């Protein structure tokens, strides 16, 4: 257990938790008072929150950029669909199986890939995801290029909304728990200096693999829920690199390694994409590009990262005065 006095933010249950619970309650009752199209907007916003947050669980906490993130999403989607269609089990069970499959894949590839660092890791993961795409496209076991369609009997937009809300909420909660656990502490150390972390007894290989697996699990859950909503899964949509890039952009804009950051990023970027995408299809790419460039040049830590570092700065001055 952590000793409270060491944490940057000491738990204050009321102040810390109330806004989150409030947001959750608002979202939980949203289907009763918003239009169906807004509900559909919120559903996909929640999907992006879940995705950028599960991206954040690994990349934000360890600093390893996972450019093959979409592989987890796609495997979760395929796992969910195939178990649902063949075993005829409840959707939530199929989703969990999808998450587990994705997670097992992450563990399996963690040994070779997590030894690589920086650009090598990024490129290796990007290639792995691309290779998965090509393999699935040719693999009859997964219906090759044709993929699967979820039968109409499973269509239920309100239920889909609640499932996605649950996935997003659990992902955020999990990130919160991780960040305040021994695992989070170890990852924080690994991110800042892996060599030192290892030298004080932290088993970096193990903790990184665990974070990788957890990230994959939630991305897989989100992939399953998304596939159920989209009703169709085929290799180009399941392993679309754009999903990785969007998750990266969202968590970066908001601030990697923070809880609120990826959520803010998802809200901003998905809104932009939704509005501009509907009316001016290419303009949103231009806006996306400019936002990323501006963020990297001006606020490389993202919106939340910037807020936190300013907070720290003011605290530092305070400490300086006291000392």
């Amino acid at each position, binding site marked *: 257990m952590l000793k409270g006095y060491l944490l940057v933010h000491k738990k204050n249950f009321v102040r810390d938790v109330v806004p989150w619970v409030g947001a959750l309650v608002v979202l939980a009752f949203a289907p009763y008072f918003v239009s169906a199209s807004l509900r559909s907007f919120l559903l996909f916003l929640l999907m992006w929150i879940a995705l950028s947050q599960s991206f954040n669980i690994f990349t934000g906490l360890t600093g390893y950029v996972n450019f093959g993130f979409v592989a987890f999403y796609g495997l979760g989607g395929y796992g969910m669909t195939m178990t649902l269609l063949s075993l005829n089990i409840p959707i939530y069970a199929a989703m969990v199986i999808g998450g587990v499959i994705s997670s097992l894949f992450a563990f399996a590839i963690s040994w070779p890939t997590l030894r690589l660092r920086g650009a*090598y890791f990024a490129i*290796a993961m990007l290639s792995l995801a691309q290779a998965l795409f090509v393999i699935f496209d040719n693999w009859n076991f997964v219906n090759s290029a044709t993929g699967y369609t979820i039968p109409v009997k499973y269509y239920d937009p309100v239920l889909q909304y609640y499932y996605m809300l649950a996935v997003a909420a659990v992902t955020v909660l999990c990130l919160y728990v991780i960040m305040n656990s021994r695992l989070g502490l170890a990852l924080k150390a690994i991110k800042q200096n892996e060599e030192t972390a290892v030298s004080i007894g932290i088993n970096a290989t193990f903790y990184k693999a665990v974070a990788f697996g957890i990230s994959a699990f939630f991305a897989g859950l989100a992939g399953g829920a998304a596939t159920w909503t989209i009703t169709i899964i085929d290799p180009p949509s399941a392993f679309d690199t754009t999903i990785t890039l969007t998750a*990266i952009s969202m968590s970066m804009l908001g601030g990697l390694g923070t809880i609120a950051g990826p959520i803010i990023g998802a809200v901003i970027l998905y809104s932009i994409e939704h509005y501009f995408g509907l009316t001016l299809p290419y303009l949103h790419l*231009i806006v996306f590009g400019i*936002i990323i460039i501006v963020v*990297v*040049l001006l606020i490389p830590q993202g919106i939340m990262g910037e807020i936190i570092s300013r907070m720290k700065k003011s605290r530092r001055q305070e400490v300086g005065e006291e000392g």
Partner: protein
Amino acid sequence: MPSVLPGALVAELFILGLMYGLLYGVLAMGLTIVFGVMKVVNVAHGDFVIIGSYLSYWAFVLAGINPILSLLLTIPFGFLLGALTYLGLIRRVQNSPELMSLFLTFGISTLIGGLLLFFYSPTQRAVPVALGSIEYGSLSIPVNISIAAAYAIAVAIALRFFFYRTYWGKAVRAVIDNRTSAILVGINPDMVSLKSFGIGIAIASSVGSIVMLLQSISPLSGPDFTLISFVIVVLGGLGNPPGALVGGVVLGVVESLSSLYVNAAMTPAIGFIIMVIVLILRPQGIMGSRG
């Protein structure tokens, strides 16, 4: 129908793979020089290729300029564009973590893609230049691919000359080898970075011109070129220009010969799988030398 003997077929596939591989290699050289000098992974590399292709396309459409001649246009333009991109954007993240340059160039890639789509629509463009093939007995070697290979060799020779015979080339090599020592002996690293980024982009956009001889392009093709370059660069070792050429040839030949055994739809996976294996077994690339 004259049927080609299997031996001749293998020879033909080998030659085709070799020539494609040379072009791949030169394409990747641009990327690897930039990485070697600045430790910047340029995700927008392929998009600069497409810019070169569009330049050649318009030169052909508006003035009837042959894509080969338009190299005279795309090389200086690419250099200028690269230098400006470096001065305006890349320079600011050069000392930040690798991650930041990765994100920045990803932003540039998205922006270029978006701008091209906005102005030129996603329609594919091609230049109707028809070149035949050269026949040697039962071998038929396409002229356009031969031109591409010849161009690649020319670039490789020019780069070799630049790296070993000119002051700036030696400076670039020195910076790739050891940045700190290079600075200590009086090399201006910013100048080296500027020039290498310019050269990297000039290579990319000139390959774009050559690509117009081979295939159709659209604003969306950029990332495909980036991916191919990544595979090659990793095969040859990041930041190792001669390695990139070797990596390109290996990839080209393996892809071409594997087509005898593997359905074409699986071909793109071959490069990725080789690359992942190489990364695991020899992270320094197949050329073997570290750094």
